[in-house]
């Protein structure tokens, strides 16, 4: 009895094993996916913002090679003008297998059908996405609700302050709320020194809008929310920081960005992200500064700037790319990438590099810096109107809100 069943049973088992090994692109098989069995080449592309980044990435790639020796990574960074080179590759249906996608353009790339959705594989291949900070992961969700990339690292905003200046003004601890910030401001403004260097752009102001309960878009991203009372209030509050003479744009201070203003000791407080540290270390090492969380408004709020690794719809080696992707954005690979301090982790289960705890904690309240297709025009509209308002020394948010709303409506309807 047993012998007669054995053969068909064995055949079935062999058949099941064969199907499990047959990992064709796009196919999700019922059997377990074994990444160590995948072999091939991954064409891997992105950009490099500094030499240290290259070193850290190489460390992560070396770790990958040790764990998955069957997969060869062909790293082809793009020198400059990343989007231009990628546009050409997409249009030829020959994108790299794994590549960077900046969160602000992710909606455009997703809506154009350039990226490959990862949800099915995440569930069938047991990749845990729950540990990603939502403020980073959600940036890569399409309008269909699917995920099109995993964040490789993340940056939220923090408040960098000059410790000596605060002490000199008699402030013992950095401000933690809007009111404290406003109270401290006049004490830090004296002579040619200003309390703040403030960027007149949406990518800073929006954090404060969120903190006041406002937003750029509605939660379903189908309509504008910039014209809400809460949003307007936040804009007025921000503009008042300029109007009262406590803060100024880097341009007006004579610098290219606020980091330089802090470095040259022209201001006491700036709002920037982790990218400030390597800059200060190399260019202005003598400044005694520290990080503190953003001061809270009615609620905590922050912005999450991030870049994903994504697979292209037309990529040739999707399985190998998946293995590399899950390694680099998994706890092991991300640790190798971030431990040197070039970037901050986007996962909760990867410890923050030394000195970056404040910045990493900010990710918990971060809203993704990623909205709808055509966002670049919305961004431009807001920034231009803000510059105009500042040049007129006004705190009236009306034109800013109207221009931005018009741009949002146009983008939603195009």
């Amino acid at each position, binding site marked *: 009895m047993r012998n007669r069943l054995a053969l068909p049973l064995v055949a079935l088992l062999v058949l099941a094993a064969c199907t499990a090994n047959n990992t064709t692109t796009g196919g999700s098989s019922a059997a377990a996916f074994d990444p160590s069995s995948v072999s091939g080449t991954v064409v891997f592309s992105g950009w490099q913002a500094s030499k240290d980044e290259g070193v850290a990435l190489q460390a992560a790639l070396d770790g990958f090679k040790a764990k998955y020796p069957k997969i060869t990574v062909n790293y082809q960074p793009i020198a400059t003008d990343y989007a231009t080179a990628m546009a050409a590759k997409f249009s030829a249906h020959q994108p790299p297998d794994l590549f960077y996608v900046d969160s602000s353009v992710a909606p455009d790339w997703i809506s154009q059908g350039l990226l490959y959705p990862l949800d099915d594989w995440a569930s069938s291949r047991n990749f845990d996405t729950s540990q990603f900070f939502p403020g980073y992961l959600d940036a890569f969700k399409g309008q269909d609700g699917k995920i099109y990339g995993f964040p490789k690292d993340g940056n939220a905003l923090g408040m960098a302050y000059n410790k000596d200046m605060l002490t000199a003004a008699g402030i013992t601890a950095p401000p933690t709320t809007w009111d404290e910030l406003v109270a401290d401001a006049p004490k830090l403004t004296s002579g040619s020194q200003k309390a703040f260097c403030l960027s007149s752009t949406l990518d800073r102001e929006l954090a404060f809008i969120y903190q006041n309960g406002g937003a750029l878009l509605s939660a379903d991203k189908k309509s504008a929310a910039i014209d809400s009372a809460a949003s307007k209030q936040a804009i007025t509050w921000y503009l008042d920081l300029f109007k009262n003479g406590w803060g100024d744009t880097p341009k007006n201070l*004579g610098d290219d960005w606020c980091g330089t203003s802090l470095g040259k000791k022209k201001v006491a407080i700036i709002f920037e992200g982790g990218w400030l540290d390597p800059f200060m270390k190399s260019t202005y090492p003598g400044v005694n500064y520290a990080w503190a969380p953003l001061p809270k408004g009615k609620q905590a709020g922050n912005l999450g700037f991030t870049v994903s690794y994504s697979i292209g719809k037309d990529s040739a080696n999707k399985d190998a790319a998946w293995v590399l992707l899950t390694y680099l954005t998994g706890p092991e690979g991300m640790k190798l990438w971030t431990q040197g301090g070039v970037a901050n982790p986007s996962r909760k289960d990867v410890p923050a590099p030394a000195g970056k705890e404040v910045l990493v904690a900010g990710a918990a309240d971060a809203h993704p810096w990623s909205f709808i297709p055509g966002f670049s025009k919305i961004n431009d509209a807001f920034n231009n109107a803000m510059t105009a308002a500042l040049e007129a020394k006004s705190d009236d948010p009306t034109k800013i809100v109207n221009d931005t709303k018009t741009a949002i409506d146009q983008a939603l309807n195009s």
Partner: protein
Amino acid sequence: MAGGTATAASPRRSLGQDRRQEALAGYGLIAIPMILFLVFQIGSIFFAIYISLWKWGPLGPTGLNPFRGLRNYETILGDPIFWKAVTNTLYYTVIWVPLTMALGLFLAVIVNQKIRGQTFFRAAFYFPAIASSAAITTLFIFIMGPDGLFNGLRQAAGLNPLFQLLGFGPTYNWLGESRTAMNSIIILNAWTTSGTFMLFYLASLQSISHEVYEAAAIDGASAWQTFWKVTFPLLRPGHYFVATVAVIGGLQLFDQAIFAGGQGGEPNNSLTTIVLFLFRSAISDFNFGYAAAVGIILLVVIMAATLIQRRLFGQAPSW
């Protein structure tokens, strides 16, 4: 044409055969370049015209109703940022072209005098044109920055009160303020291109015969009068050539604008040119169809400008 009639010394070939051989030789010699142009340049225009009628992304027509007809053009002509780009580009062209032409002519006239070190000066004036636009713009950004050489020099020279009067503080960011960004680019490009135009004008100057000047001197003309009434008009073909090349180039300003102002044409779109606007639509929004429509509009503008110049300057012998 000279020598067109059959000469008595070549009785072997008939005129018709001659002409045919000449035509064949002509076609043969231009074949490869023309093929390359047709495929890579003219072909691109047809492609651009085609996709300008669609909502076209990197993977082809995209969206629910990709066919747009002329609606891309309508949207462009209704976009205030496009018109800002047009204004910026026209402003740049209208100021930079005559400025650089005048500089080039001025240098050519001076270098054409019998002076020592003529070769050296000729080399010196052409020097800035050699470096790549990236290198030069980087250098320029450094010099015109708030803490740069220019601000430092004017401080050292004690000129700051004068600048303050005009509204420019001691650490004014020339490339970073919307008021002066475009003017700074104009100065940068006038500096680099004046040498090239100088060379073009030198050729024309050298072809003016000595007798003309002698005649003017005999008539008692001063140097100034000689220049304006004799030299300048005789340079008409030179003006035409330089002006045409300059306008074609000026209307396509891109490199320095994007280096100094980034994709956003900072600050406040003051450095947004038509080509930068095209680039932005293509690369930031991946809206190729829209970008192609901008390109076609620009092409029409450039052609119109070239034809107008041809009409205004009359007969252009070298075209």
